[in-house]
């Protein structure tokens, strides 16, 4: 009898030593648990068993033998517990699985979980001796299990770190690449590839606001209907990420697309675009860190798209400025290089082009018989087109003045020519006069221009005889001309609306009244003085405000 006991004891000890050697030789949790469970099944003659461990405060069924797949699937979701009695769900689960006996697995530091065993094949209860033996086995195994769990946790942390590193390097790479890509579609495509790679998306759409225009850059769903739905959404006001329930609540029309996330791509606190992301193909839900990453990638992309847009704008602006320089050049070259010295007239002129370059023009053309055509005009519009029409006008004037027609007839012909040459609704207001230096006589035609002022003894006469402005239609009603005999000290001022419409900061105009006051309240000794006085008053009035129209004047003082 004693001998039998001894043999049994010896066999138990041998089993323990063997078991200890095996479980402590591996850090693989699965291997260790498997070994532990098999050892128990063999030792206690049972066909069923499982090991439940507490991992990150959650009870998990990690290893089982003899349990059906269906049983494993219904293992309840449980927070950390130490006794079967603490959880009715667990108690029921064990009952259903016919796991009749369980024992805690405890390391010296903490309770790791439970080992549960089924009925013994011989239907006998677990004896005290067997229970003690189980405790011993679990004590031996606990350290190995704890170590393996620790290694698993480390692996998990490592993996998370790898994932973070991977995301950071993605951000870095995208930042670099977005910087060199120049077109919108490449940027959005790359953004999509990156998100696809990271999240295995099943569906997606990338939407941006270009000014106020909504554009779908990428989409797995049909673009036109999506655009229609989104056109009713105030994109700029979307501040937060919306998940499935947020989408259903706030954007019910979008729910049919089954997007899981709407993430605004923000520029200076305002959404300039949206990322719409569907579910991940591995069925994992989006975590807080996922959202952070998507947000960062989205921001990078929208900044890059915005930069491209600004760059394009700057380019266009530069082109426009170059064009304006050209226009200014044309305009400068059209104006007379010098003003002729006359016997009975002092003449001064100025033309100041505005930032945008208007279409002001004045000219002095000497005829073969020694008289002078002096004209002032304002072409509608600005920039190069206005300058070109102005150049046309000058060419017409130069040739018509050689033909010997009277000034009214010449105006008719000019109007017909300009009308033929303008197709885009442009027109010219024009005034010109033919001056006889000997007789002090002028004959003028006013084609819709601000009437020049003739000041004689503080009294103003408006030179307004003429007809329609140039370029609107072919001449139907002939232009009228008027001849005026000038006298000593008469002042004549030709000007464009840039003078009287010069604006100050409060958007008030210099006005005809101010101009007339200057001319009637002072006595002038030279045409230069007249010009300077008007200019000084305008400068004072606008006080440095940039002018949108050219300012042009020709002043005469009769000697």
């Amino acid at each position, binding site marked *: 009898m004693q001998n039998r006991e001894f043999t049994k004891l010896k066999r138990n000890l041998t089993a323990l030593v063997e078991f200890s050697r095996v479980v402590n030789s591996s850090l693989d949790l699965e291997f260790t648990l498997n070994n532990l469970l098999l050892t128990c099944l063999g030792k206690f003659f049972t066909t069923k068993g499982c090991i439940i461990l507490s991992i990150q405060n959650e009870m998990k069924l990690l290893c089982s033998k003899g349990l059906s797949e269906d049983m494993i699937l219904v293992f309840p979701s449980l927070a950390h517990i130490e006794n079967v009695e603490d959880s009715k769900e667990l108690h029921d689960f064990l009952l259903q699985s016919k796991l009749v006996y369980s024992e805690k697995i405890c390391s010296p530091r903490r309770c790791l979980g439970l080992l549960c065993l089924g009925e013994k094949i011989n239907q006998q209860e677990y004896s005290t001796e067997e229970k003690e033996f189980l405790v011993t086995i679990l004590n031996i195994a606990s350290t190995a299990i704890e170590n393996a769990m620790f290694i698993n946790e480390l692996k998990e942390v490592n*993996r998370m770190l*790898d*994932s973070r590193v*991977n995301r950071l*390097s*993605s951000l870095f*790479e*995208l930042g*670099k*690449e977005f910087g060199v890509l120049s077109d919108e579609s*490449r940027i959005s*495509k*790359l953004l*999509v*590839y*990156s*998100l*696809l*790679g*990271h999240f*295995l*998306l099943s569906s997606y759409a990338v939407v941006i606001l270009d000014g106020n225009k909504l554009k779908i850059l990428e989409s797995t769903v049909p673009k036109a209907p999506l655009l229609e739905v989104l056109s009713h959404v105030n994109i700029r006001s979307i501040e937060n990420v919306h998940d499935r329930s947020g989408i259903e609540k706030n954007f019910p029309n979008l729910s049919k697309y089954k997007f899981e996330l709407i993430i605004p791509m923000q520029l200076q606190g305002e959404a300039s675009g949206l990322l719409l992301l569907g579910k991940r*193909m*591995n069925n*994992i839900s989006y975590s807080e860190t996922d959202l952070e990453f998507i947000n960062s990638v989205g921001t990078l992309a929208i900044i890059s798209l915005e930069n491209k847009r600004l760059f394009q704008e700057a380019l266009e602006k530069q082109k426009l400025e170059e064009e304006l320089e050209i226009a200014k050049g044309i305009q400068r070259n059209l104006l007379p290089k010098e003003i002729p010295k006359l016997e009975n007239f002092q003449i001064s002129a100025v033309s100041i082009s505005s930032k945008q370059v208007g279409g002001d023009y004045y000219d002095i053309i000497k005829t073969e018989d020694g008289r002078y055509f002096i004209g002032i005009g304002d072409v509608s519009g600005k920039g190069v087109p206005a300058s070109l029409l102005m150049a046309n006008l000058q060419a017409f004037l130069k040739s018509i003045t050689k033909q010997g027609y009277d000034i009214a007839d010449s105006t008719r012909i000019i109007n017909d020519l300009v009308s033929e040459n303008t197709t885009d609704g442009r027109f010219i207001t024009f005034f010109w006069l033919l001056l006889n230096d000997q007789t002090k006589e002028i004959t003028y035609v006013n084609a819709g221009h601000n009437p020049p002022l003739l000041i004689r003894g503080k009294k103003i006469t408006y030179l307004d005889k003429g007809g329609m402005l140039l370029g609107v239609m072919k001449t139907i009603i002939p232009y009228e001309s008027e001849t005026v005999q000038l006298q000593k000290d008469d002042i004549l001022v030709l000007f464009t609306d840039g003078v009287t419409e010069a604006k100050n900061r409060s958007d008030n105009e210099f006005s005809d009244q101010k101009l007339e006051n200057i001319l009637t309240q002072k006595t002038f000794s030279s045409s230069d003085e007249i010009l300077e006085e008007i200019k000084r008053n305008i400068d004072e009035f606008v006080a440095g405000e940039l002018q949108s129209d050219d300012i042009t004047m020709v002043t005469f003082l009769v000697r």
Partner: protein
Amino acid sequence: MAEFSTTHRENGEVNIIELNGYLDAHTAQHLEIAISDLIVKNKYKVVVNFERLKYISSAGLGVFMAFIETMRSNSGDIKLAAMQPSVYNIFDLLGFPLLYEIFPTETEAVNKFNQ
């Protein structure tokens, strides 16, 4: 700039794309073109040989995602083969093994199509 190139071979019905060098945000477009070419020609059975690929970034992985549905809905697939461990790690990290078949060698991947 990092170099990247692809070569294309056929083995029966199966199209083999060999990747060479660095597949990242910058070079992803090359792969995109290579796979689009196959789709244009109605070739949907693709094995990608990674043997000579030194580096892959998530944008590169995204390209495979972008085309997988087209291939599968035309009774084809993209199967991946012969990855270096560093490249496999990225695929593994981002959860690709769940969705893609990854083989140690090109032959095994081709054979899988022919089964």
